[in-house]
C-alpha cells in the first residue's frame, strides 16, 4: 500500500468526476434537490415534539419513571401520563381524544427489568399517521435499546443518557434528513461503482492499470476515499441548506461521522461486487438496480421503518442501508449512542464482508 499512488489515483478520479456533469449531479446536486423538495413539501408543518399519552401501570417503580423520563428527554416526544376511566382501553381513549399514538407500560415493569425478565412496553399507533408513529416508535425503541444495553453491562439504568440533541424541537423535515443522507450514501457510490467496474473491465482499463504498480486495494481505497469526501460534502450541504432555507435543527454530530465513513465503504464495495460478478455493463446495471432499489425505499430513507408492517420491517432489517440510517437517526435525532454503537458494529461487519468479497471477485486480468 503506497499512499502517493492512492492520492494520485484519487486526484485523477476526482478530477474526472468534476468534469463529468452526470456523476456530479447524482452526488451533489441530487441530494440538494431532495432536501429542497422535501423542505418545500413540509414547509408549513412546523411540527414540534409529538404528544405521547402514557398509561403507566407500574407507576411506583423507579424503572418505569426513569424510562418515561428518558423518553421525555429525547425531546422528540412529550410524555403525558394519563389515567383512563375505568373499563376503557387506551386505544378507545386515544380515538376519543384524536391522538394518533399512545404507550402502555405494563405492571411489574420495574421488577421484571431488574430481574432481567423479558418485559415489553406497548405502543399503540394509528397507521394513517406514519409521521407520529415513526417518531414515537423510533424514540421508544431507542430508549428500550439503551435500557437493554445498560442492563446487559450492569450499568445502573437510572444513568440512562439524557438527550444530547438539546431542547431543539424537530420539524418533520428534521426527521427526514438522516434518511435523505442515507439515500445519497447509497446511491452515489452504488450507481457509479457498478458502472465504472463493468465499463472499465469491458474497455480494458483494469488491464491497463495492471501494467502499472497501482494495486487493486490502492485503487479501491482511492474510490472509497472519494465517496467518503463527496457524500460527506453532500451531507453537510443537506444539513446546511435545510437549516438556512427550512429552519431545521438537526446537526451532524461527531457520532454520525463513523456512519458517513463506513457507508461509502460499504456501498463502494457492494457496487464493485455487483459490477464484477456481471459479465457485461448491461447485466451489471440490472444487478445494481435489483440490489439498490429495495434499499432506496425500504431502509428508512423516505418512510420510517417503524411505520411498516411487521413483515416489511423484518425485510428492512436485512438491508445494509437500514443500519446506516438507523445509526444516523440515533446519533442525529435521538442522541442514542448506545443503539448507534450496535448499528455501527453491524455496519462494520457488513462492510468488511462486502469489501473482502469485492476484492476477491475483482480480477484485473484473466487467466
Amino acid at each position, binding site marked *: 500500500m503506497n499512499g502517493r499512488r492512492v492520492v494520485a489515483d484519487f486526484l485523477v478520479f476526482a478530477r474526472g468526476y468534476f468534469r463529468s456533469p452526470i456523476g456530479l449531479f447524482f452526488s451533489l446536486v441530487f441530494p440538494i434537490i431532495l432536501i429542497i423538495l422535501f423542505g418545500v413539501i413540509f414547509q408549513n408543518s412546523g411540527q414540534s415534539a409529538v404528544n405521547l399519552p402514557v398509561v403507566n401501570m407500574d407507576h411506583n417503580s423507579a424503572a418505569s419513571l426513569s424510562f418515561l423520563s428518558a423518553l421525555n428527554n429525547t425531546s422528540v416526544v412529550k410524555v403525558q401520563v394519563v389515567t383512563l376511566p375505568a373499563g376503557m382501553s387506551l386505544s378507545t381513549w386515544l380515538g376519543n381524544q384524536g391522538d394518533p399514538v399512545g404507550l402502555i407500560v405494563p405492571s411489574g415493569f420495574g421488577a421484571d427489568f431488574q430481574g432481567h425478565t423479558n418485559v415489553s412496553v406497548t405502543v399503540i399507533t394509528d397507521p394513517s399517521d406514519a409521521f407520529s408513529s415513526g417518531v414515537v416508535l423510533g424514540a421508544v425503541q431507542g430508549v428500550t435499546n439503551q435500557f437493554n444495553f445498560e442492563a446487559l453491562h450492569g450499568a445502573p439504568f437510572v444513568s440512562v443518557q439524557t438527550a444530547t440533541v438539546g431542547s431543539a424541537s424537530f420539524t418533520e423535515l428534521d426527521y427526514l434528513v438522516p434518511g435523505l443522507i442515507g439515500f445519497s450514501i447509497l446511491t452515489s457510490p452504488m450507481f457509479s461503482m457498478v458502472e465504472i467496474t463493468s465499463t472499465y473491465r469491458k474497455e480494458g482499463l483494469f488491464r491497463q492499470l*495492471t*501494467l*502499472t504498480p497501482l494495486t487493486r486495494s490502492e485503487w479501491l481505497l482511492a474510490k472509497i476515499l472519494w465517496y467518503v469526501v463527496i457524500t460527506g460534502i453532500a451531507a453537510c450541504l443537506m444539513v446546511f441548506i435545510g437549516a438556512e432555507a427550512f429552519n431545521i435543527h438537526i446537526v451532524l454530530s461527531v457520532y454520525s461521522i463513523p456512519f458517513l465513513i463506513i457507508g461509502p465503504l460499504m456501498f463502494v464495495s457492494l457496487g464493485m461486487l455487483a459490477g464484477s460478478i456481471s459479465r457485461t455493463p448491461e447485466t451489471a446495471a440490472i444487478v445494481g438496480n435489483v440490489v439498490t432499489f429495495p434499499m432506496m425505499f425500504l431502509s428508512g430513507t423516505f418512510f420510517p421503518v417503524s411505520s411498516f408492517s411487521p413483515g416489511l420491517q423484518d425485510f428492512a432489517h436485512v438491508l445494509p442501508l437500514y443500519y446506516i440510517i438507523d445509526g444516523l437517526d440515533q446519533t442525529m435525532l435521538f442522541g442514542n449512542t448506545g443503539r448507534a454503537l450496535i448499528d455501527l458494529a453491524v455496519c462494520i461487519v457488513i462492510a468488511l464482508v462486502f469489501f473482502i468479497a469485492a476484492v476477491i471477485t475483482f480480477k484485473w486480468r484473466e487467466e
Partner: protein
Amino acid sequence: MLAASRVGGGSRLDAITVRGLEKAYGPVKAVNGIDFSVPAGTVFAFLGPNGAGKTTTTEVLEGLRNRTGGDVRVLGLDPWTDGAALHRRIGVIPQDFRFFEKIHPREAIEYYGVLFNVKPDAMALLEQVKLTDKADAMYETLSGGQKQKLGLALSLVSNPEVCFLDEPTTGLDPQARRAIWDVIRALKASGRTVFLTTHYLEEAALLADTVAIIDHGKIIVRGTPDEIIRQHGRPDRISVEAGPEVARYLQTKLGMTAVAANHHVDVELPEKTDALRVLQALEQSGLTWGRFSVIRDTLEDVFVRMVGKMDEGVVHPEASA
C-alpha cells in the same frame, strides 16, 4: 540489466524467450506450440492474419494472460507469476488502447509518473510522439491515432527495457504511422528491445531485425526479412510491357516460364544473367515491346503466399518441418 537466458549457446542476451508456448480458450487453441527468442536491443515483428494468435501471445508475454503450456521468460521473469516486478520494466500498448475519458494527456503522463515513481518530462514525451498540440485536450476528444500516440507515450513513462506494441499503427493515417515508426527507431537506437505485432508487411520490413509469421497459432516462418524473401520468395522476374504473342515467343525461343497479363509479360529469372537473354531475345524478335522492370518478391508477397498455402494445407508449420 537484461535477462541471463541464452539461446543455444549464442553469445547475445535474450530479452524474450518462448518455448513450446500453448494457449487454449476452452476448445480453441489460439497458440499451438511456438518457439522464438528476441535478442535484447533488437526489433522483433510478429506477423500474421487476423485471429492468428498474435495478441494472445503478446498478452502472455505481458503477463496479462496465463499460458496453457510451454515456458515463457521476459527479462528472465515469468510474466504471469512475476507480473508486478515485470511491469515496472516493460512498456505496453495493448491492441485497442483505451484510457480514462476525462483526463488530459499531460495529466495522464504525470499520473503514470507517480504510479511508477519517476519524474517524467511530460512535454518531451508528448513531443516524441508528436502530440504536444493535444497536451491539454480531453482524452475522449482525441482521434484514434492521437489516442494511440498517448498510449505509446504512457508506455514510455517508466523508461522500459522492453516495449510491446500490439498493432500500434492499425487504422492510423500515414503521418501518425510514421510518427510511431520514428519512436520505434528511437527506441531501438537507445538499446531497447521492441516486440511489435502488425499485419502491415512493409512496416515489419522497414523496422524489424527479425520477423516471425504466425498463422493458426503456429509459426510458419521466421528469420530476417531478407532471409525470408530469399528462402521463400519466388525467383526474381522481369516484367515487360508487351502483348501475349511476346510471351509465346519467349517461351518457345528460350524455354522459360512467361506469363502474360494486363498488357505485361512476366518472365521468371532463375539466374540473374537470364535477364540479358530475355532482353536479347526481345530485341531480335521484331515484336513490339515497351518499358521493362525487374520485380522482386516483397515480404508481403511471401506472406500472402505462405498464409494462403498454409490455409490449403500445403505448407507445414516450421515446428513440424
